C-alpha cells in the first residue's frame, strides 16, 4: 500500500515501518500523518507514496485529526449515511507520527484521543530526534546522544537526560492494546499491527526506527541495528493486551549495549577516554529495565 519511489533516505527505518504496517492488514485504512520525515518524503508534489486515503494536518495533531475522522465515520455509519463499498470490511484508522510529533508536541493530542477511546491505532516511529528539521534532541533521544541541541562538546557529553517512557504513558491510559516493536523483527511487528487493529478501542505501538542520517550509522546496517536494539534489550519487545503484559522476544544471549551504540556516530564521544562511566550508566539502565520487565512478566 506504500508505493516505491518515496524520498526517504537510504536505510531509513520509517520507510520499512510504514510498508510493514500496511502489509499487516486487509482492512481499508485511513492514515493521518504528523509533520515529519515520513510526511514530507512520501508526499513530494506532485506524487504520493500512499495508496490509502492520507491526511497531513499539523505537527501536533495527528491523533486529534484521526479522532475527528473516526468519530464522523462512526456517526455516519450509525445513521446509515455511508455509501456502499465493494470491500464491506469496516474502515480502520491509523495515526502516524515521529517521536517529536508524539512524545513532545503531540502528547496532549495523543493522550486526549486515547482517553476518549477512539477506535484507532497510533504508531510512533521513534528515531530518537527531530530528524526532519536537523537532528534536534527530543524527549525520546537516548541519554548521551549527540544532537544539534544537545551537542557533545566541552560543556556536555550529549543529551544529559533519560528518555521519556512513552509506552508506559500510553499504557497508563488503560487502553486495550499497547506494544513496542522493531522492523528488524518484522513478523512480531506485523502481528502486533493486526492485533492492534482488531482491538476494540485505542491501540498504541512504539516502533524503533533507525535513522542513518541522525544516528550517523551506515545505511546498509539499518536492519542490523533494528535487530541489535532488541537483542541488547535497549528496545525490548513486549505487548500489553487488556492489561496483561507479555514479552514477545527474549534473547538467548543478551548482547552488551555497546554492540548497539558503537555502530552509531551519535554515541561516538562516549567511547572516548573519560566517558567510560556514561557507557556503564547506559548498560546499567538497560539491565535494570530488562530486570523490571522480566519481573513484570512473572506476575
Amino acid at each position: 500500500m506504500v508505493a516505491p519511489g518515496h524520498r526517504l533516505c537510504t536505510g531509513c527505518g520509517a520507510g520499512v515501518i510504514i510498508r510493514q504496517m500496511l502489509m499487516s492488514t486487509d482492512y481499508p485504512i485511513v492514515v493521518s500523518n504528523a509533520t515529519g520525515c515520513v510526511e514530507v518524503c512520501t508526499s513530494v508534489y506532485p506524487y504520493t507514496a500512499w495508496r490509502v486515503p492520507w491526511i497531513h494536518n499539523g505537527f501536533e495533531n495527528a491523533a486529534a485529526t484521526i479522532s475527528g475522522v473516526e468519530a464522523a465515520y462512526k456517526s455516519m455509519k450509525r445513521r446509515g449515511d455511508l455509501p456502499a463499498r465493494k470491500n464491506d470490511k469496516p474502515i480502520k484508522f491509523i495515526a502516524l507520527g515521529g517521536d517529536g510529533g508524539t512524545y513532545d508536541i503531540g502528547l496532549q493530542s495523543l493522550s486526549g484521543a486515547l482517553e476518549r477511546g477512539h477506535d484507532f491505532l497510533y504508531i510512533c516511529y521513534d528515531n530518537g530526534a527531530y530528524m526532519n528539521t536537523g537532528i534536534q534532541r527530543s524527549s525520546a533521544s537516548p541519554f548521551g546522544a549527540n544532537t544539534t541541541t544537545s551537542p557533545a562538546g566541552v560543556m556536555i557529553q550529549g543529551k544529559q537526560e533519560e528518555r521519556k517512557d512513552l509506552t508506559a504513558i500510553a499504557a497508563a491510559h488503560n487502553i486495550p492494546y499497547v506494544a513496542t516493536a522493531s522492523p528488524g523483527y518484522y513478523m512480531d511487528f506485523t502481528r502486533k499491527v493486526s492485533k492492534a487493529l482488531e482491538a476494540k478501542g485505542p491501540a498504541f505501538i512504539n516502533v524503533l526506527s533507525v535513522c542513518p542520517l541522525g544516528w550517523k550509522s551506515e545505511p546498509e546496517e539499518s536492519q542490523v541495528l533494528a535487530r541489535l536494539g532488541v537483542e541488547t534489550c535497549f528496545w525490548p519487545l513486549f505487548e500489553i493486551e487488556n492489561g496483561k503484559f507479555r514479552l514477545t522476544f527474549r534473547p538467548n544471549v543478551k548482547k552488551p549495549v555497546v554492540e548497539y551504540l558503537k555502530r552509531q556516530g551519535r554515541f561516538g564521544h562516549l567511547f572516548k577516554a573519560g566517558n567510560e562511566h556514561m557507557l556503564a550508566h547506559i548498560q546499567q539502565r538497560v539491565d535494570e529495565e530488562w530486570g523490571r520487565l522480566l519481573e513484570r512478566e512473572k506476575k
Partner: protein
Amino acid sequence: MSGNAVIAEAAIAAGCRFYAGYPITPSSEIAAVMAEELPKVGGVFIQMEDEIASMGAIIGASLGGMKALTATSGPGFSLKQENLGFACMAEVPCVVVNVMRGGPSTGLPTLPAQGDVMQARWGTHGDHPIIALYPADLTEMYWQTVRAFNLAEKYRTPVILLSDELLGHMSERVEIPDASELTIIDRRKPDVAPDQYLPYDVKTELVPPMANFFEGYRYHVTGLTHDETGFPTEDPDLAEAQLRRLMLKVSANADDIMEWEEDGLADAEVAIFAYGAAARSARAAIAELRAAGIKVGLFRPITIWPFPEAALVKAVSHAKALFVVEMNMGQMIREVERGIRDVPIVGIHKVSGQPIDPEEIVLTVREFLEGKVTLPQKAVYQMSV
C-alpha cells in the same frame, strides 16, 4: 555568517542569557547556535516540548530577571500567540524571532515569504501594544537584534524580530560591532521599598519599574485585567486605564521606536515601499532604473510596528506613484493606503515561495511610466508576479 547565526550572536551581545525554543525550519539554526554558545557564557538553553511551552519559558525566565529569547517560524509563531498576549498584558520583556516562511499552515517550510507581518501586529487576541522590527541585511540584523532587547527592556513589552527564510539562510559579510559600540539597556528596577512597590502603576509613568523575582519584591502576575498592584479587577475605570496605558507605552514613544530608511527619495519620480528580503530586490531594481535615468527612490520601514506612517507620507508625497513590493498577497499595502491620499499606489506581490526578481519590479515601473498601467484615481493595482 548566516542571518540566523547573526541573531544568536547579537542576542548574546545584547545580554540575552536564556533561550527556550522548539525546532522549526527556517529558524532552527538560531537554536543550534544558542545551544552551543549559551552554556559557554553561563547562560541557559532549553529545548521545550513545543512552541507554547517555549514562549511560557521565556516569560518565566524574564520574570526571574534574565533577558530571554525564542525563535520560530509560521506554525510555531501561531502557537506562541496566546503567551505573546500574556507577555503584553503582564508587561514581561522578551524577544520573539519569526523567520518567515510560506503559509498558511505548514505551507512552504524552506522558502521565504512575508505573510506574517499582520500576524505580528494582531496575532494574539485583544487590543495590545506591539513592537516589530524587520531588518533587510545582516549587519542591520545584528543591530536590530540588540535593539529588540533594548526596546523590550525599556518598554517592558515583548518585541518581535521579523526575518525571513532568505535573510535567515543567506550569507553575506557582516560587520560585527565591538561590544563598546553597543548601548545596552536594562529594565528599570523599583527604587521604593517592597511594601510600596506598584508593578502596574497607572498614575505616575507609562512604564512602571519592574521587580525581578528573587529580589525581595513580591507581586501578583496575571493575564487577567489587573489593578496597579497586579491583582485582578473588573473595575471599569481601572480596566480602561490599564489598557490605555499599555497601548500608550508604544504609541506615545513611537518616535523612539520607529526607524526607517529613505534612499534617493528627494528627487524621485517614483517611490518604492519595501521591507525585509523584498527591499533587497527593490534596491537592485532601483539601481537598474537609476542607471537607465529613471529617478526611483526607496522607503523602507525597519520598524514595522508601530508603522512609520507620517515619515512615509512626508517622504513620498511628491512622487508620481508609490510601488509597494511585498512577498505576500498585499498586507502592508493596506497600511500604506491609510496614510497616502494623493499618490497612486501599485502593489507588486508574490507568494510563490520565490524571492521577487528585481526585473519584475523594473518591468512594472517601466510599464507604469509608459502609461501601460492605467490607474483610476486612488486605486490599487495589484500586480501578481
